[in-house]
């Protein structure tokens, strides 16, 4: 890829010196122009992935990472976009495939994508009150009512927390345990936080 052309045109783009592929930090305000530049002038024509990221101790807390692939030169470039005020512009106007990726990032992290044509939850149901991949969301989940009130009334079932403690199918490396399979790290549970 032509890194000089990118940084010359967008001086605010910061080179992150990616070890596996070229990586840049792009401000949200530049994102659409950068992606359009990479798509139209540097042949990065395929959006391989778009995902949300949470950095617990950083500001802003959330970010979005895009992987772009050039089908002409067979190389990748990675763009890191900090989500100021949990907002990032949507790239679905440039790469239609970003539509569902952005819905997933919204569903799991609560990142809003400005300009998205249909920003609804995609995995959880509409009206679910949490964003489950946030670090402050417990692994076991939080109890909420079932999405359908009539089904909940008949079955008495709610969305129940399922703690990993004593839970299923965690293999121990090296040897087969005689005991019942359980979560690997038993020092902490949902009630007793990790110290």
């Amino acid at each position, binding site marked *: 890829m032509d890194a000089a052309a990118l940084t010359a045109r967008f001086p605010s783009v910061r080179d992150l010196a990616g070890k596996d592929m070229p990586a840049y930090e792009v401000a949200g305000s530049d994102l659409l122009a950068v992606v359009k530049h990479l798509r139209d002038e540097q042949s990065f024509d395929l959006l391989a992935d778009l995902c949300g990221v949470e950095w617990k101790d950083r500001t802003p807390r959330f970010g979005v990472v895009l992987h772009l692939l050039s089908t002409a030169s067979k190389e990748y470039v990675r763009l890191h976009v900090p989500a100021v005020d949990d907002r990032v512009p949507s790239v679905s106007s440039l790469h239609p495939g970003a539509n569902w990726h952005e819905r997933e990032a919204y569903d799991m992290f609560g990142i809003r994508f400005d300009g998205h044509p249909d920003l609804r939850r995609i995995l959880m*149901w509409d009206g679910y009150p949490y964003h*489950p991949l946030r670090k402050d969301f417990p692994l*076991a*989940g939080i109890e909420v009512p079932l*999405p359908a009130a009539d089904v909940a009334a008949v079955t008495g079932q709610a969305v129940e927390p*399922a703690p990993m403690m004593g839970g299923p199918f965690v293999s121990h490396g090296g040897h087969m345990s005689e005991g019942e399979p359980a979560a690997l790290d038993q020092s902490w549970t949902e009630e007793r936080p990790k110290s």
Partner: protein
Amino acid sequence: MVKTDFGYNSKVEGEVIVTRADAVVNWVRSHSVWPMPMGLACCAIELMAAGGSRFDISRFGMEVMRFSPRQADCMIVAGTVTYKMAEVVRRIYDQMAEPKWVVAMGACASSGGMYRSYATLQGVDNIVPVDVYISGCPPRPEALLDGMMLLQEKIRKEGGSLRRTFKGRVVETKVVS
């Protein structure tokens, strides 16, 4: 329906077989189970294999897969039931005419399996009554056939098969003349 020496004389009564009503009704029901594949994950692939020629579920009289709950009497829950899907599973179960049975196929449908998370119902028996649980992840088609034959065995032992039920409760039979 074994011929016995007493209570039945073939010379007098001809081609008559004496048995209990339950036995006849249950015999018919158990050999014409119409399953509805509730295929939610990879277990559904094994379910399809069980319907194919190699395993041939029709050998046991339950090959009439119907994709409409109104025309089925056995729901095979094959796969991971998420909370989002749980609502649909329950609604489809409610739409099936009685008598009806439910088979939980595989670890996920039986207990949530390896999905122990905010999104997955920990066993479909939390929302619908389950008759047969089949272990496996996914179960082989033979295991499904074994489970279905277990269900047939269960159907044959059911009592009160002439009673009309609605939502699991016995209702009065009305005679319309």
